[in-house]
């Protein structure tokens, strides 16, 4: 088993746990970024450099930046850290952590029992990703396009404001 793969996946698991357990949201998101970066390395080691680059550009570079952007606009202070601490009680995390520990045990068992198939050495380049996205998986691309479209429409609807009109006949018109 490749040592880079093991280190990167270990960092990914650790960073994700830290991301869940931080009370301060920005610190949690920073750990999430580290988790995305290490997953990108995992993809790279598994022979998918194109997906690795997209993982960084899209997830770490764009989506988390947008989340941080929203958090900065909300301007959360100490109250929110306190709120997080109350929500994050032992009772709440008991169920999820038992399930995750079961999964982690399975992962460690798989890693230790050398029965896995060898890492694929064949690199998947951008061309084959494109061919399979616009070939057999075209329905998935179209559906996610529709989902994004509905998101845009919803955001437009939420952001639309009624213009204040002083004129008595034009009162009920919206723009």
């Amino acid at each position, binding site marked *: 088993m490749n040592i880079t793969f093991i280190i990167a996946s270990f960092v990914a698991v650790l960073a994700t746990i830290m991301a869940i357990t931080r009370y*301060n949201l*920005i*610190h949690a998101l*920073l750990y999430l*970024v580290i988790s995305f970066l290490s997953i990108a390395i995992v993809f790279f080691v598994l022979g998918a*450099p*194109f997906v*690795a*680059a*997209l993982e*960084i*550009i899209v997830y*770490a*570079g*764009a989506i988390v*930046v*947008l989340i*941080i*952007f929203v958090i*900065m*606009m909300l*301007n959360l202070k100490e109250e929110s850290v306190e709120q997080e601490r109350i929500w994050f009680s032992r009772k709440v995390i008991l169920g999820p952590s038992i399930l995750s520990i079961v999964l982690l045990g399975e992962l460690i068992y798989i890693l230790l029992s050398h029965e896995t198939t060898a890492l694929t050495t064949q*690199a998947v*380049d*951008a061309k084959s990703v494109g061919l399979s996205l616009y070939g057999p998986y075209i329905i998935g691309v179209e559906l996610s396009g529709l989902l994004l479209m509905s998101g845009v429409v919803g955001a437009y609807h939420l952001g639309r404001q009624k213009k204040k009109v002083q004129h008595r006949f034009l009162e009920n018109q919206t723009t």
Partner: protein
Amino acid sequence: MDDATISHLLITFGVLAGLLLVAPGLIWLERRLLALWQDRYGPNRAGPFGLLVVLADTLKLFFKEDWIPPFADKKVFVLAPAIVVITVLLSFVVIPFAPGIIVADMNIGLLFFLAMSSMGAYSIILGGWSSNNKYALLGSMRGAAQLISYEVFMGLSLMGVVLMTGSFSLIDIVEAQRYQWFIVPQFLGFVIFLIAGIAETHRLPFDIPEAESELIAGFHSEYSGMKFGLFFVGEYIGIMLISSMVTVLFLGGWYGPSFLPPLAWFIIKMFGFIFFFILLRASLPRPRYDQLMEFGWKILLPLSLLNLVVTGGIILWMNTH
């Protein structure tokens, strides 16, 4: 160690040393050129042509008090200036300066550059947020919006070049320009990339995240000493990065008439664009924030999509005929 390893190490450290030496020199170059264009002298006292002012500036930054405000988020505050330098220096890994002079030839070189430039946005966001200061926060929110938007056009404007080459590797892209530079068939892409590049490095006229006249210094208001110095050096290495990317992608990289070595051609083209960046600073006023966003989403985005569609259509037509 064998010869290949030694030469590779030499290239790696040579590129690193070159960048870190030229970046402070650019500060002197910028001040002298701005002075020239504004009809005054600029720094001309210390040493030949005032070159020693670079040394004085660096020493000054080192000896200034390195102050962390008590209301700041300390860990993030320290982390933020490092991110910009790390990401910009990492981007230089994929840039081919001359045949054989490249740190790592990746087959996803261009995507690596885009990924690193999108990670660079964190420096502004975290720096502004952790300062816990309203001007810094305003600056970093502007910076986040600006960088995310202009990354989109930057990526789209490059895709024309990728379509014509058929590869993301920067060496392949340079070699495809042996007979014709991509600035001719991809002129629209070149202009969009240059504008988006200026916005990515948040240089004047797009230095809206730091806008001195409105936001004091924007996201780095609270920084002093060498932490401020890192933001400063990161900005200048960023200028060099965008200039070298324009050279590689649109001006044929190291290709040129053979009376000069390839590396010299690369450096001449790169410095041409650095001079252009400084000339922009000397001549253009800063747009308003909403004007910048409107310009991006309403003009640059449709234009770059149009460029992509037309390029793709022509390539498809040429392949079938």
